[in-house]
């Protein structure tokens, strides 16, 4: 049997298994909106840990990470640096958000914010910005799935078909089972990813270079500029410290502001579970190391993939591994893509309907679920359209989305911790920050020190939020007390 046939069979089995787990998971979930969005607040530690880890580590880490290590060298270290920084504040913010959620019945982050700053337009703005940020994120996951399938089937299943099949399955179980499906499939896929990443990350350097240290010694001798931080730009010039550092900061600030991650605070069974997830989270970060090793292993390897994002499947194929291993790897990478994609689709629908639509029209619970399912399909379709663009870089897609999502950070902090903040303050801060980020994204030649547009946005956002809040009438005391009490 030809290799690609064996690989295709393994992928098929894997996808079938994922679908089964995803569909089975929905059977015990209650039929309410809380059941669909927050899984009846019932996740234990194991599920929470893998849900969070698997949602954070996506096709971005599994394909984009090695792609950067391969083409931009030490620049990829930025991806390693921000996770622990971004997650740590959640040790306190998570339980606080959860307790506010239990008290007021919040299931999304916009509800948490609007509960404190009553404003329909604020709610709608958050819903729309979330959706805009989600599209490039879902796009990169779909493209990732398509890349893997196209590469390992030797082009027999092109990107358009591979991403269609993989995401057809994701959409099926998200539509049917909601948050429950996302939880259980991510546990399964998370375990799978970790095992595959470590196995290949240790195996490839040994097989190709005789070890990890010999590999880096040979790279340092042949291409010393590659290993010296802050690494290289896509064209091979040295990258700037300004960009490297602010990519870390914007990602750290934005990490937990992703609605699909923030919403985990509302799905956790209890606060201890959430705290332990935060504590264990950096261990998931270390899993980027083997993933980078795979990318670095490609540096001195003869031959070149069609784009840096293809380096991982390219390496796997060029090393004549048995078809079964190739198939398993492919399933690991697919699971990385799908486990984030499902959470994203699910969150985009919950946020858009819960915080956008229902603020303006009154609809029944049943109609809300229908709306959510329609949004899942719509987001999927838009992302699928963009995923066909051959020039996109997986890492840059996400880095761009972070420019928007990081703007939620001051808003959330003000809602949960700053009693003097006012609605006018947070709205003007959010508008000013988002506009600034957008302008610098659109006209990058004006960026100061090559800084990420999201950080430049925050530099405007925070002073505006504080200034306008102090200049406007404080919120009524009973409102603030009622919110925090």
């Amino acid at each position: 049997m030809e290799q690609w046939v064996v690989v295709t069979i393994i992928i098929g089995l894997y996808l079938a298994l994922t679908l089964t787990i995803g569909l089975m998971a929905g059977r015990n979930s209650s039929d309410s909106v809380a059941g669909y969005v927050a899984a009846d607040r019932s996740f234990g530690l194991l599920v929470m840990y893998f849900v969070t880890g698997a949602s954070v580590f996506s096709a971005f880490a599994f394909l984009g990470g090695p792609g950067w290590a391969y083409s931009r060298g030490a620049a990829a270290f930025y991806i390693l640096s921000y996770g622990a920084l971004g997650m740590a504040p959640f040790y306190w913010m998570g339980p606080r958000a959860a307790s506010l959620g239990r008290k007021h019945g919040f299931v999304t982050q916009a509800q948490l914010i609007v509960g404190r700053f009553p404003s329909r337009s604020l709610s709608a703005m958050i819903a729309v910005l979330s959706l805009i940020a989600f599209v490039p994120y879902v796009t990169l996951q779909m493209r990732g799935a398509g890349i893997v399938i196209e590469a390992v089937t030797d082009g027999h299943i092109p990107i358009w078909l591979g991403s269609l099949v993989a995401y057809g399955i994701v959409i099926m179980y998200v539509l049917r089972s909601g948050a429950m499906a996302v939880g259980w499939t991510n546990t399964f896929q998370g375990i799978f990813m970790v095992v595959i990443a470590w196995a290949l990350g240790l195996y490839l350097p040994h097989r190709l270079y005789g070890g990890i240290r010999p590999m880096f010694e040979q790279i340092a001798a042949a291409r010393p500029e590659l290993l010296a931080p802050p690494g290289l730009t896509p064209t091979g010039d040295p990258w700037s410290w300004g960009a490297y550092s602010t990519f870390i900061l914007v990602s750290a600030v934005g990490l937990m502001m992703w609605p699909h991650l923030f919403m985990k605070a509302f799905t956790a069974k209890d606060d201890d579970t959430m705290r332990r997830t935060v504590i264990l989270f950096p261990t998931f970060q270390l899993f980027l190391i083997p993933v980078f090793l795979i990318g670095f292993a490609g540096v001195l390897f003869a031959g070149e993939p069609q784009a840096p994002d293809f380096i991982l499947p390219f390496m796997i194929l060029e090393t004549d591994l048995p078809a079964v291993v190739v198939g398993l790897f492919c399933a690991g990478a697919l699971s990385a893509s799908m486990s984030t994609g499902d959470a994203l689709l699910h969150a985009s629908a919950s946020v858009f309907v819960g915080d956008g639509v229902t603020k303006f029209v009154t609809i029944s619970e049943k109609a809300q679920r229908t709306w959510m399912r329609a949004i899942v399909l719509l987001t999927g379709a838009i992302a699928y359209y963009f995923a066909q663009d051959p020039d996109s870089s997986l890492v840059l897609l996400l880095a761009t989305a972070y420019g928007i999502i990081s703007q939620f950070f001051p808003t959330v902090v003000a809602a949960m911790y700053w009693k003097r903040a006012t609605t006018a303050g947070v709205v003007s801060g959010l508008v000013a920050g988002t506009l600034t980020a957008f302008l610098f994204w659109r006209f990058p030649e004006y960026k100061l020190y090559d800084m990420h547009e999201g950080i430049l946005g925050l530099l405007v956002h925070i002073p505006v939020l504080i200034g306008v809040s102090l200049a406007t009438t404080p919120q009524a005391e009973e409102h603030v007390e009622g919110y925090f009490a």
Partner: protein
Amino acid sequence: MSLKTARALTGVYFVLMAFAVTWPGFVPFARVEPFVLGLPFAMAFIAAWISGSVIVLVLLDRVEKRHRDQEAD
């Protein structure tokens, strides 16, 4: 250790980490040699800060938990 001290120390650790992995704190450590466990020094340096953060968070959690238990009594 009191709750306040533990929280302050945790905060200090993560501020230091943020400084150490970005410009300018990272510059002195942004080199290839010496290799640590086969990894370039800069990469191992970041990995060490990540590992340290697990330890810091575990210690913080022990203090926080003791405090919560006392409150519950």
